[in-house]
């Protein structure tokens, strides 16, 4: 039942970037942890005390049957149950854009965790701009695979939008990277904000409240 070592070593690059931001031996909550790929990696290679919340039954079942501590729950509702500063890191990977109230969610993440790590698809990527600007269509790509009428992603933002929101909320951005969906072309958002916002398909932000 346990995951194979080789499976563990090859996690998606954006997850690897998140994992690199996490100090070993810390307490981590992965919000929307899916089938537990990142959590499993962190537990086994970074010896973290890891927990997860996942909405889908399949995800929860995969996690728990793999020995991970995951509850079936809705991040929109259940984050408020956790005490202040209960974790060193709260991870929200590719989920922010699907939340009812991303701003409130960010507040919760930084209330529960000393740090928050947030990754999200960048709606200002050049291909998205091309779809919208030239073709006049909502973008559908490998990274954003849904049609507008069926997408769970109800709150898209750009890297710039997100950086502005952090500033407004007084959140300190400790690290921020943009990358394409294959994980190459990694850029530091703080050094090359314009290029990051144009060529980054997604971004990973390490935040402190």
């Amino acid at each position, binding site marked *: *039942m*346990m995951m194979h070592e080789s499976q563990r070593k090859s996690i998606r690059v954006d997850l690897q970037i998140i994992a690199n931001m996490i100090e070993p031996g810390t*307490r981590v909550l992965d919000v929307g942890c899916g089938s537990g790929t990142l959590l499993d990696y962190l537990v086994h290679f970074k010896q973290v*005390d890891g*927990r997860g919340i996942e909405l889908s*039954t399949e995800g*929860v*079942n995969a*996690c*728990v*049957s*793999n*020995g*991970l*501590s*995951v*509850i*079936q*729950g809705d991040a929109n509702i*259940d984050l408020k*149950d*956790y*005490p202040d500063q*209960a*974790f060193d890191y709260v991870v929200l990977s590719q989920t922010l854009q699907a939340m009812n109230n991303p701003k409130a969610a960010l507040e919760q993440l930084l209330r529960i965790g000393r740090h928050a790590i947030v990754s999200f698809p960048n709606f200002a990527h050049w291909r998205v701009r091309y779809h919208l600007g030239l073709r006049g269509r909502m973008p559908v790509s490998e990274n954003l695979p849904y049609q507008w009428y069926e997408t769970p992603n109800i709150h898209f933002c750009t890297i710039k939008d997100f950086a502005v929101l952090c500033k407004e909320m007084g959140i300190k951005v400790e690290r921020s990277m943009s990358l394409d969906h294959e994980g190459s072309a990694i850029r530091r958002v703080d050094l090359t904000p314009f290029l990051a916002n144009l060529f980054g398909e997604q971004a990973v932000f390490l935040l402190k409240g």
Partner: protein
Amino acid sequence: MATTTNNNTPQTEATIPGLQVCLAREEPVRLDCGIDLKNINVAYQTYGQLNESKSNAILICHALTGDHFVADVHPVTGKPGWWSELVGPGKTIDTDRFFVICSNILGGCMGTTGPKEINSETGKPWGLDFPGVTIADMVRVQARLIDHLGIDKLFAVLGGSMGGMQVLEWAAKFSDRVFAAIPIATEARHSAQNIAFHEVGRQAIMADPDWCGGDYLSHDIRPHRGLAVARMTAHITYLSQSALHRKFGRKLQERDVVSYGFDADFQVESYLRHQGITFVDRFDANSYLYTTRAMDYFDLAGDYDGALANAFRDTKTRFCVFSFTSDWLFPTKASREIVRALNAVAANVSFAEIESDKGHDAFLLHEPEFFRLMAGFIDGAAELHGLPRRED
């Protein structure tokens, strides 16, 4: 394992096989009602071997009408143990790896001290003179048994329904002695609806003239009819509407037309009558009264200023909470309350709601997803507890 036979064991029913020990010989157990109980007989079963470091013990807590015959043939009914699908060599609770203990609860009727046993002070069955017991009292006695077995810390405590209440009680009151807790299809306090169903059952028993004000054993009779009705009512609450429909629909019992009388026309009636009649062979009516009452009184938060989270503050125990989609007696909502309380103290908790249309009974049945998740949780916990891995 030293087994103590006790001279006070009554012979009112066929003698029950299995292990038995007399506990609290010196130091009585202080019950919630204030009474000190001494010389408590506890009937129990064990499966597998306790390892050298005594770190592989799993305590199973049985439900209202369960007993300690978890994984072997029941001495009265001749049926397989109530959790034999889950517990056994190579099974999810693998008795090749773990030392599994299950004891009959205080107030029970399968060998542990309860209302049908002889009160050594009077030489007569306790009957209604037996002190009122609570879930906490049951757990206190279990803790004495674990002491007796020389075990400091249990690797896991698990149970469903009333068994789950005991798991929560263990985790709250003996948190240092529980590495992992698995409360299944349970609740941290008995709901008004559930108290109401229990009251119907109790009234059915007490309305039976053969109950004799609780003193039926002295008259050598049993309130079979009342107890059977109590069981029939309860049994409905263990099933879901869809499970009942799937199993019976409106099918008639061994007839083509209705009888225009009150015989069991429908299969579902016949089934319930069968459930009632077979139950009375293995269960004591007064024990049913006492045990349902213990469940009614259960409100774990009540011991912690009304805040359930306080019951688990600073807990090191790992939890895995299960509920079942069609269980309306102990619904998912009740499990979520437990999970919420555990989250509020940042406890290590897993929670899954298992898809099943079999109602509350689902926890006793072979639900592959449930077993798979349980195995994953146990294997993960075992690794952290330094126990050897499952052999593939």
